[in-house]
């Protein structure tokens, strides 16, 4: 992409809009986008309807997942309730040939990607580090270290480009992770190699308990892209129409050979960092209720309803599907899978080392001894 320099030497083509792009206001009314460096138009009602349905189901599964922690079925769960527009919208803008690089908070994005919720939750249940096949879904394992996966996204996007494919990579990241070094290295590598990757920052205002004000002095996290020569945009992350519209532009930008794109989505996680954390220690009830009024799901549902794209029956139908999928998830999570300790040495290397084979034999002998002891006891 040719960068246009304004008289002051500012690369205006790269600059985000002064205010987050918003197309659908919190009252569910489509609004004229405020003046910005790039203009976006609202996606079709058909696509917004699909997005809404994904959000309904995603939220229901997210709430169910949190409930599963209370029943001891999941070791931990980082909720993304309130961030559905980002997770569902971003995923709906890419296709099956594109790559996705999620963090541990992207459960709803994984569900939207078509990954079985049980497989998506395997990491958090504690059976294995990744329950799905990353190559089959073109979706990397959920990343726990912060921002390290962004470099993998840049590399995969560049690899696709080298292969002559037009596939892009979508990489999720939170606001706190923009402070990590790998974030900056990833933006720089992606820009230098013109890798078709979209860095999607869900700025949900807190990195566990540390607020954005203590994380960064940048006017907006979207400005961090400019220094690397990466076109950047900030959006109202609770506005599903803005998420989809700007994601469409980002995908088009990357797919057509213009290199990386950074999106900062201003959003809010309604729950704590995980079920294990007490959010009341670092934020007020007033703050939470103010964000409740900006709920992305209610907002889109209002617009769809008012404009005749949605009726009571369709809402009941989507909610019913959410209930069924939540119930299915609950049932299947109630089954206790047997994890075989003999498998511990599988997949460290293609072939175990002689030292691993020795240890494997030791574990096998221990297991056999335990089994025969248990058999004797039961007689």
């Amino acid at each position, binding site marked *: 992409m040719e960068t246009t320099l304004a008289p002051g030497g500012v690369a205006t083509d790269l600059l985000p809009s002064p205010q987050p792009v918003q197309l659908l206001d919190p009252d569910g009314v489509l609004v004229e986008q405020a003046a910005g460096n790039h203009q976006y138009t609202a996606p079709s009602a058909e696509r917004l309807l699909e997005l809404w349905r994904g959000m309904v189901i995603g939220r229901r599964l997210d709430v169910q997942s949190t409930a599963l922690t209370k029943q001891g079925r999941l070791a931990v769960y980082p909720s993304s309730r309130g961030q559905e527009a980002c997770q569902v919208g971003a995923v709906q803008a890419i296709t099956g040939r594109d790559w996705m690089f999620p963090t541990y908070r992207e459960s709803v994005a994984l569900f939207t990607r078509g990954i079985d919720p049980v497989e998506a939750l395997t990491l958090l249940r504690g059976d294995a*580090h990744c329950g799905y096949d990353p190559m089959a879904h073109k979706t990397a394992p959920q990343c726990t270290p912060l921002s390290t996966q962004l470099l*993998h996204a840049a590399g995969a996007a560049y690899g696709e480009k080298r292969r002559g494919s037009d596939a892009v990579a979508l990489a999720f990241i939170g606001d706190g992770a923009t402070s990590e070094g790998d974030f900056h290295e990833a933006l720089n590598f992606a820009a230098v190699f013109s890798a078709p990757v979209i860095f999607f920052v869900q700025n949900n205002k807190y990195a566990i308990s540390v607020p954005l004000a203590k994380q960064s002095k940048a006017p907006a996290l979207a400005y961090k892209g400019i220094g690397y020569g990466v076109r950047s945009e900030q959006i109202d992350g609770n506005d599903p129409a803005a998420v989809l519209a700007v994601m469409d532009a980002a995908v088009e930008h990357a797919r057509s050979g213009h290199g990386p794109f950074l999106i900062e989505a201003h959003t809010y996680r309604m729950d704590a960092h995980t079920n294990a954390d007490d959010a009341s220690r670092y934020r007020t009830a007033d703050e939470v209720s103010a964000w409740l009024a900006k709920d992305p799901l209610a907002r889109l549902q209002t617009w769809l309803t008012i404009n005749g794209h949605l009726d009571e029956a369709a809402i009941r139908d989507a909610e019913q599907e959410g209930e069924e999928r939540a119930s299915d998830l609950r049932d299947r999570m109630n089954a206790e899978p047997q994890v075989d300790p003999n498998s511990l040495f599988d997949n460290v290397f293609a072939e175990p*080392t002689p030292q691993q084979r020795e240890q494997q034999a030791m574990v096998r002998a221990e297991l056999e001894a335990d089994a025969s002891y248990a058999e004797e006891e039961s007689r």
Partner: protein
Amino acid sequence: MSTVTMGNALNQALHDAIAEDENVLMFGEDVGTLGGVFRITDGLTEEFGEERCFDTPLAEAGIVGFAIGMCLTGFRPVVEMQFDAFAYPAFEQINSHLAKMRNRTGGKVTLPMVIRIPYAGGIGGVEHHCDSSEGYYAHTPGLKVVTPSTPADAYSLLREAIADPDPVIFMEPKVLYWSKADLELPVQEPPFGRAAVRRKGTDVTIVTYGPSVPTALKAAEAAREEGWDVEVIDLRTIVPFDDETVVESVRRTGRCVVVSESQGFAGVAGEVAARVSERCFHSLEAPVARVTGLDIPYPAPKLEHTYLPGVERILDAIGRLQWDDVPDLTHAGASA
């Protein structure tokens, strides 16, 4: 036959691997036009183009993380960390992702890549240019750790590293880059996990690797004058480790000295000593001795000769193996 340096052999190995497999790429800082600060990538960009051997931004985590992503699309990257200590910013990528990805994903994602790291001292390098970091990598499950000591092994092991389905940390002893051998390339040496007996002997086994191999061989020659017939084993690959060759030798000689340039505490030499003690206890005539770098940061160039395990220290250790007098190995500070 022609005279080949270790640097030539590594360059030829990269050249041949890139020529043979279109998925093999070489990248890192200064590896393109300059040909690497040690010229190991000399001429590759010229011959194969920037698509196959290219310069990257100066960011080690970036280089490794980017290579991991490229593996997802079927490439087999070989990346260069310019010097041992410069690789530390990439340690998280190496430890948390490179080493674990096959295991994390139940074998669905494999990362067939090589990280080349010029390492260790003896070349008068300034600080951060002489670290022996093999212990960190060997301690991380999922990484193979390789270090050649001859031009033939440099060629053969690097070709095998590039063909390997798992990530390989390829440690290049800087001090040996200019070592020579009469050799016809390509050459195929024994595979990973097979140590080499560099000198046969009957009285003492020295177990060593990489930059310390020539020093150990010199010490073995010197020891002959004192009546010791010393066997020298070069591990070649630290991971996987060749217990078999080491154990066979020590059971025969009854005495073992482990030589490593790395600082000794909690290092590879300690691991070797422990393995030998566990497996050869009844054959040992004396405790396993370690001759290593000192437990200090690698010193300034003018003092590196004091730091490095040299011939004299190895001979002293061999002398102690007579075990006539029990040496006082009590912590010096405690007895003073």
